[in-house]
Every structure is written in structure tokens, then in C-alpha cells.
């Protein structure tokens, strides 16, 4: 079953990449669709980021002030905005988490 889903999703993904190169469709997608697809990365990735930071993996509750992941993520956001480098952002966030987990 997992192979079936993986291959089906893989074929769909290939189709999204190939579709406009296929010469079967000569028009660009309609502007409203281009606008909407432009928000896919922000929406999807934020939907993954926020629970990964706020939901405590131990008991599945929302954690705010006693949550080292929240503060580590805040530092990582600053690092991302300042350096725009993925490796620095990951490094700052992970090290901040280690320090905070040790300190809190």
C-alpha cells in the first residue's frame, strides 16, 4: 500500500513539473491560479512549523513560556532574516535549543 501511494504521489508530482513542458497545454495557468499557487510554500511550511514549535511532543499540549523550542525558534527566525542562510539558521536554532534545554 505504501508503495502504491508513494508511486501515485510521485507520478502526480512529476505531472505538476512536466505539465507546462508537455506541449499539450500552450496557455499559462489563469492568473488567479498563479496567485494562489504562489502562497503554497508559505502556507504549507508555516502549517508544519507552528505545531512543531508550540505542541509539546511529550503530552501533546500547547506550550508557551516554559517552552525552549519557542525561544530557539525565535532566535532562528532572527538568524534567517539576518543571514538568509539555511545552515546558519539550523545551527543557531539547534544550539539555542540545546542551551535552553540545559538551562530551563
Amino acid at each position, binding site marked *: 500500500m505504501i508503495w502504491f501511494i508513494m508511486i501515485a504521489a510521485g507520478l502526480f508530482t512529476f505531472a*505538476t513539473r512536466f505539465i507546462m513542458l508537455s506541449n499539450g497545454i500552450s496557455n499559462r495557468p489563469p492568473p488567479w491560479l498563479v496567485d494562489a499557487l504562489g502562497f503554497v510554500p508559505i502556507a504549507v511550511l508555516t502549517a508544519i512549523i507552528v505545531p512543531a514549535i508550540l505542541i509539546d511532543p511529550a503530552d501533546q499540549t500547547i506550550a508557551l513560556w516554559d517552552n525552549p523550542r519557542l525561544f530557539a525558534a525565535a532566535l532562528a527566525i532572527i538568524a534567517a532574516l539576518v543571514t538568509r542562510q539555511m545552515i546558519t539558521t539550523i545551527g543557531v536554532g539547534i544550539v539555542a535549543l540545546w542551551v535552553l534545554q540545559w538551562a530551563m
Partner: protein
Amino acid sequence: MPNAQNSPKASQNLSARSEFWAGVCEEMPLIFGVAPFGLVFGVLGLESGLTPWQTILMSSILFGGASQIVFAQLWAAGVPALIVGGSVCVINTRHVLYSASIAAYLRHLPLRWRILLGYLLTDEAYAISIRRFQHAPPGPHQHFHLLGSGMLLWTSWQFSTIFGVLVGGTIPDSWSLSFAIPLTFIAIVAPILKTRADLAAAATAGTIAILGQPLPWNLWLITAAIGGILAGWLVNRLNHQAGATS
């Protein structure tokens, strides 16, 4: 500033080989972001209960980082297969944009080339090669640039996944390596949040992702994604209307 690439003589007749290596070299800085991401996916795949082969081959079959992470997480949570597949598909629809934007430069190629370059058309390869297509003078071998950027990315992704699968079991939980996933996505999202519509998309998606936690089958993810897309799209549209009438 004078730019060698903008001078027609400099690059009009670049050979296939120099186009290919230009693509490889320009893609190189992005590998520092892609390699840790692939490694994290390799580790996470095993943690999610995928076999080593399922984890490694997913990197070739899907070849899309965020969608692979989501696949593994939903699969680990026991979400019905149809919802896993549907979520992965929604995440990957964005490639239609890249395909549409780059089509003008590739449409004349033989089918086997378009299939190969379509398969290699990821966020990172697109970002690098569209710059060459748009800003350097066209050349007969310019598609080799995308072949170079795409193949470097593909190779790095496969090797970093395999590396993650191999070392995954040896990394202690106390290292909190799974936290690298939200960090990777923060590195992608934070710098691209520019307009009010972007912020609306992010705020809506994040809020729904939290409030929707009680939904069955991890439906919060797909609901939050679609909600965020709609919010961004609406604010964008309202802004344009306000701009048009004022």
C-alpha cells in the same frame, strides 16, 4: 556594473559543457541547505517506521523535501493512505508555477529532454536556472544549465538521504535532530514573508494548524495549508482592488 553574462559575445555560444558546469557551480551554495535537510529526512523516515529502502527510494520517487517529510510524519501517525497522498499532492502543486515559468525556454526540446528536465525541476534548481534563462543571452545549449543544477541537487539529495538512513540510528534523541525540520522551514519561509498577503497566509495557516489539532487523521495540515493559501489569495486580491480604486 559591467556583467560578463550580459554581454552577448560572452555567452551566446557557450558549449553544452560550460553551460552544464555553470549550472552546477551556481547551484553549489544551495547544497549547504539541502544536504542537512536530506539527512534529517533520512533519519525521520526510519523513525516514522518506513524501511530503509522506502526512505531512500522516496527521495527519487517524490524528490520534494517538504512533501517527503509530510509523507513520513502522516504515515507514522497512521493517517489513511488517501489523505497522505492528497496532502503530498497539494504541497507539490506549486511546481506547476515553475513549469509554466520555465516552459518558454524548454518547449522546443525533444520529449526525452523535457521529461528529464521536468523530473529535475525542483524549487532550488528552478531558482538558479531561471536566472540564467532570463538574464543571460539565450544559447543553443542553455538547457544544459538546468541539467547541471538539477543533477547536482538530485545527487546531493539522494546521498544525504542515504547518509541519514545510515547514521540515523546512531544519533541520540537528546540531540533533538527532528527540530531541524521546523528550523529548515523557518530558513525558507522567514525571508520570503514580504507582503501583507504573505503574512496573512502564514498567520492563518499557523492558527489553523494549532486549532485544528483535534481533527481526525491529521487533517489539520491540509486544512491549514488550504486556509493559508485562501487567506493570502484574498488579501492579495483586496489589496489590488483597493489599489485600483484609490
